[in-house]
C-alpha cells in the first residue's frame, strides 16, 4: 500500500511541472494551423466556389441587385476544415493562427463581402465564361448536379 503510494509520487515527481502559464503567456500553434478565417475583401471576385464546398453551409451568397453580390461568412458554424481556403481561385481566404474565438457578440463571427459584378450592358447579366468558376480546378471540386449555379 505505502509502496504503491510512493511509486505514484515518484512518477509524478519525475514528470515535473508540465502545465503552461496560459493565458498569461500566449501559446502559438505550430505548423499549418487551421484557425479562424480571414477574408481579403479586395481579392474576392464573388465566384461562389467557397459556398459550394463548405460542409456545414456557413457561407451564404445572395444577389440583392443585378450588379451586386454579397458573400456572408457565418463563422459560428465554421468547422475549420479550410476547404474554402483550398478552392478559392483568388486566394482571398486564409486560415489564421487565431483560435481564441470566444466572444459575447456573434457579429464578431460574421464577415460580409460585397462585390460589384460587371454586367452586360445589353442583357444586364453578369459576364459569361471564362468566369472565375472555371478556374476552380482543384481536384475533387464538383458543383452538385441539378442545383442552380450561383
Amino acid at each position: 500500500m505505502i509502496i504503491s503510494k510512493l511509486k505514484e509520487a515518484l512518477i509524478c515527481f519525475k514528470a515535473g511541472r508540465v502545465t503552461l502559464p496560459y493565458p498569461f503567456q500566449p501559446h502559438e500553434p505550430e505548423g499549418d494551423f487551421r484557425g479562424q478565417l480571414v477574408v481579403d475583401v479586395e481579392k474576392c471576385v464573388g465566384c461562389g466556389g467557397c459556398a459550394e464546398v463548405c460542409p456545414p453551409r456557413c457561407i451564404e451568397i445572395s444577389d440583392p441587385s443585378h450588379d451586386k453580390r454579397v458573400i456572408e461568412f457565418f463563422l459560428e458554424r465554421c468547422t475549420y476544415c479550410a476547404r474554402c481556403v483550398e478552392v478559392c481561385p483568388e486566394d482571398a481566404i486564409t486560415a489564421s493562427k487565431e483560435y481564441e474565438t470566444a466572444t459575447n457578440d456573434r457579429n464578431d463571427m460574421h464577415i460580409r463581402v460585397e462585390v460589384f459584378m460587371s454586367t452586360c450592358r445589353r442583357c444586364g447579366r453578369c459576364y459569361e465564361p471564362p468566369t472565375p468558376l472555371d478556374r476552380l480546378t482543384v481536384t475533387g471540386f464538383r458543383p452538385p448536379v441539378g442545383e442552380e449555379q450561383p
Partner: protein
Amino acid sequence: MTTAELIRRLRESFGPAIRSVAEPVAGKVRVAVAPEVVVRAAKALTQEYDARFLITAGIDSREERGCFDVDHIFSLDNDNIFVILRASVPGDSPKVAAITPEIPAAGWAERELQDLFGVKAEGHPDPRRLILPDDWPDGVYPLRKDVKYGDWPPVGDETTDAPYPFKQAPEGTSTVVVGPFFPVLEEPVQLRLFVDGERVVDCDYRGFYNHRGIEKMGDSELSYNEIPFIAERICGICGFIHSSCYCETAEEAMGFRAPRRARYIRGIMLELERLESHLLWTGIAGHILGFDTVLMQTWRMREPLMWLCEKISGNRKTYGMNIVGGVRRDIPKELHPDILGVVDKIEQEWSQLVNAVEGDTTLRARLVGVGMLPEATARAIAVVGPTARGSDLHIDARADHPYAAYDEVPAKVITHPGCDNWGRVLVRLLETLESVRWIREALKQMPDGPILSDEIPEEIPSGQWGACTIEAPRGEAIHYVLTGGDNRPARWRVRAPTYANLQALPSMIKNETIADVPITLGSMDPCFSCTERVEVINARSGESDVINHEELLARSRAATERLRRR
C-alpha cells in the same frame, strides 16, 4: 474459402431462391435472395461458414424498383470476404422475417430498420422502439425518401405520448434508473438496472437521445466530398476513423483506390488516433477506479501527441485530412523526427505503466473476474474490438480486412483469454505499444508519390456500392455506401463500434454489484462526457431515491478503497 466457392455452395443449398449475385470488387459479394429464405440463408452463413453479423442497412428503392431493400451485412473474417444478403420486400406492405431469433446480434439493427424505414421485422423478440423518440408519431419513417431533409414530423396526438414500454422489474427486485445521461458512456443513455440488494439481476436500455440524423444528411443534403468532414464529427474521439472509412468505402464504390502514399498517411493518422484514444481511456478507467494519478499521468503523456497531430494536420483532434481520392496533407520527411520523438517517449513511459498495472494487486482485485463476457456470448452478440479481443476472439479489421496500408505493414492482433474487465484493460494497454511499433514501421516503408488520386471519375454512375470496415480504438466501424445521382450517395450506412458492444452490456453486468457497473461499462471504452444523475426507485413502494453521478463514482471508488485497506 473463395467467393466463387461460397456462391456455388449457396446456389446448391438455395437454388432458385438466389435471385442474383454481384461481386463488383473481389471479396465483396451481394447475394439477393427471396425474402422467404433470408432467415435460413443468414443462419447458414453464420453456422456453416462462420460468418459474423455486422449490420443491417435498409434502402428505400421504391422509386426505382418499387421495393425496400434489406441488406444484412456479414463478414467472413478468415477469408477477407464481406457478404451482403439482400431481401427486397414490396414497397406497399414492407415486412421481412426477423433474423434476430437466430442471430441475436441483429437485435438492434432490425429494431432500427423498423423505426427508420417502417420495414417490419416479423418475429422480433423485442420489437420496441430503439431510435425514434417516445412522442414520435407512428407511421413517419425518417429515412424513407419521401421524408425530406429538414421536415418536421407532425405533432403526435396523446396516443403517441404514451410512456415508453420499459421492461417490468422481475419479482423481488428494485429498479435503479441511471440516466437519461449516463456518466461513463459517451452517449446520453438510460439504463434501468434491476437490482436485488447490491446485485444487478437484469437491465433495460433506452438510448439514442442524441441521434443526429447524419445518414439522412448524407443521402439528401451533402455531396460526396462534404461527407468526410461531417463523418469526422460522428465521434469526438475516433473521428478520423469515420472519415477514412467513408472515403475508403466511397472509393471502392467508385472503383479505384487512393494512392499508396495516401494510404500510408491514413494508416499513420489512424494509429496516432488510436494512441490518443487508448491513453485517454486509460486515464478515465483510472479515474473511475479512484487512481487519479493514472488519469493525470496518462493525459500528460497524451498532450505531446495532440500537439503533434496539430502540427501534422492543422488541428488537435479533427484532422480534416481525408477527401475521397486521398488525403489533403502530406507527412513530409521533416516531420518524421517529430513523430518518432513523440511515440518513442510514449513507448518508454507506457512500458513502465504496463509493468506497474500488471503487478498492482488492488487493480487485479477490482478487475479480474468482473464483467464476465464468455467467448461464446461475445461471439453470439458479435462484439468487436478490445471488448471481443479481451474475450479471446481473434477479430481485428486491420488483419482480417486490411485497409489503408495494413496490407503492406501488417498489425499484430492482441488478444487476452480473461473474458473480464482485466482482459479488456490489458488488451488496450498492449495495443498501445503495438500502435507505436506500427507507426515506426510505416514511416520507414512509406513510399513517395502523389497523395491524391488522379483516377477520380468525372461522372459517378448510380447503383454502385462498397462496404469497408476500419478498426477504431474501441472496435470496428463499418460504412456502406451506395452511389446515387446528384453527386451524393443514395444511401450511406454507418455503424460505430459501440453499437455492437453496448448490446453485450446486459450479460456483462448481470450478477455484478452496482459499484462494478461503471468500470464494466468503462471497460468497453466510453467517454466521460455526460454527468448526470441516478435515481433509485423501489419497485414495490414506488419511492424514489436520487443518487447523483458523484455518488455513483464514490461507490465505485469506495470499492477500490476497501480492497486497498485489506
